[in-house]
């Protein structure tokens, strides 16, 4: 499943870029993401993703690897995790890009999400909607955090 | 004879007293045991089959108080105080039930895997509606799937049995 999101943030590009690497605060914007840890600065991180669809709950201990880094422009990363209780695996290929637009920053990301195993039995449609929801909330949370911070500053 | 099971010492157990093929049966089950497993593994009646495991195919059909249920998705304790009929209980004193005769005579089975469930479901149909139209038969039997016969012979068998049973009644 492919998703594409873009969000305009009224904050300079460098600030957004730095925010991404402030792992704890960045991860806090992902709904259901907890316990973010830096395993190797700039390269590997871990977190736990918890999501719920009705009565179905999943907990994916996730490893996030940074594959490419184009300073102030682009990040390619991969996140993968498995929930053994429910016999499911998750893999996300993430392409994050930033560009300046009229004094604001446009943060865009393309996410390729794959869910394998029993969870897929729930129905492709439901997972797609959930993933879409999570990514939407994530984009909005990042925007709010940064714009909120700049107001306090 | 039901084989005793090793149990976790503080496992909850439920006394299940029920009629199985006309005879009183008394067993002890844990809440999570499925009827299919109890009938097959503990009571040794393997006519009921595990097939899709999601109550869609009908190979696990059993009659509980004359009504068809999916044994794969029924908890065993649910038959307490009830009567259960398996395919093994259909023939009486060695004499086959008209449905069984009809399936043999009209070629209503090939590999036979769906057949116990088919016949029990057909019995429930005819008990409820001794003179079904073909549409009524198809509607009732819709949840019993056969991969071999293409259903034509199954329908013929059931209709033939129905006719015979009406004549005898």
């Amino acid at each position: 499943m492919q998703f594409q999101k873009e969000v305009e943030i009224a904050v300079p590009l460098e600030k957004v870029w730095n925010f991404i690497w402030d792992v704890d605060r960045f991860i806090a914007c992902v709904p259901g993401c907890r316990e973010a840890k830096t395993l190797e600065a700039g390269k590997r991180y871990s977190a736990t993703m918890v999501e719920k669809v009705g009565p179905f709950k999943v907990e994916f201990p996730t490893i996030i690897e940074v594959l490419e880094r184009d300073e102030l422009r682009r990040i390619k990363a991969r996140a993968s995790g498995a929930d053994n209780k429910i016999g499911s695996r998750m893999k996300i290929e993430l392409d994050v890009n930033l560009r300046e637009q009229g004094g604001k920053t446009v943060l865009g990301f393309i996410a390729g999400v794959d869910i394998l195993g029993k969870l897929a039995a729930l129905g492709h449609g439901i997972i797609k909607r959930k993933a879409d929801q999570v990514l939407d909330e994530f984009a909005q949370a990042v925007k709010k955090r940064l714009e909120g911070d700049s107001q306090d500053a | 004879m039901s084989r005793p099971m090793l149990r976790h010492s503080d496992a909850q157990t439920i006394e299940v007293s029920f009629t199985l093929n006309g005879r009183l049966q008394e067993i002890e089950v844990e809440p999570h045991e499925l009827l299919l497993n109890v009938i097959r593994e503990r009571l040794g009646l393997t006519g009921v089959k595990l097939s899709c495991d999601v109550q869609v195919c009908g190979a696990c059909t059993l009659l509980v108080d004359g009504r068809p249920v999916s044994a794969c998705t029924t908890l065993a304790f649910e038959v307490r105080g009830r009567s259960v009929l398996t395919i093994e209980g259909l023939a009486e004193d060695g004499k086959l039930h008209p449905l069984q005769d009809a399936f043999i005579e009209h070629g209503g089975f090939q590999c036979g895997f769906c057949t116990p469930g088919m016949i029990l479901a057909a019995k429930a149909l005819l008990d409820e509606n001794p003179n079904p139209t073909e549409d009524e038969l198809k509607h009732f039997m819709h949840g019993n799937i056969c991969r071999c016969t293409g259903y034509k012979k199954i329908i013929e068998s059931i209709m033939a049995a129905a006719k015979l049973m009406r004549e005898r009644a």
Partner: protein
Amino acid sequence: MLRRFRLEEPESVQEAADLLSRYGDGAKVYAGGTELLLAMKEGLVHYERLINVKQLKGLNEVKLDDGTVSIGALCTHHQLETAPLLKERLPALVELEKNVANVRVRQAGTIGGNLCFAEPHADPGTLLLALGATLVAQRSSSRREIASADFFIDAYETCLAADEVLSEIRIPAPAAKSGIAYLKFGYLERPSVGVAIALTLNGGISDAKIAVGCAGPAPKRVAEAEAMLTGKSIEEASRNLASAGQAAGRAAQAISDLHGAQDYKEHIVGVLLKRAFQRAVG
């Protein structure tokens, strides 16, 4: 094989609600088990306690309550398809219940369980929406009536609180001259698209309720489509059916999956709406 759990068999709805309150996520209401046991067998959910509600008294009756049809949440689909009161007053519901899943699921499955599990590909919710039904939920010391339009939140999600037990479905008496129809379409095990329509007919169409289900995450009423039929003559309404069908298709929130592509499902919604309308006006 299922993982072990404890069975609780409370004697009253209050006791059941208390148990749910006490054990939270670790307990679940268990009736026919036709959805719950499947999810548990798949390992998608696990509960330490199942709260059997089948032994609770008074929850499996179909009766008339001053014109309103009252259906106990524990009524099985089989009970509903054979209930004389429903055959007389709500034949469209009887027709729907006759075609739920298969004969074995209809034997064990309850309407309450069907509604509370809120599987997207289910039938009853859609028609209950078009009938303007209300659902009664009970907890330890209180009871509330929920409009069906507020009941379904999302796939597998209703507005019920964790300690609420659905006890009753109440369907107001349809108008003296009504046309009610539910049609569904699908070729997989569960329906892919369902459309319900309830019309009040007096010369023209004085009221129209339209609901779509199965194609999207939860069944929905479609106000936009209803407006195109309400207050119109039958001829005028018929001319609006194509647009109403499109509105209903959009409202369904269909997603492309194994059941079909999004535009395909939206198209089928339109087809079913047209046919349901024709059946409803007789």
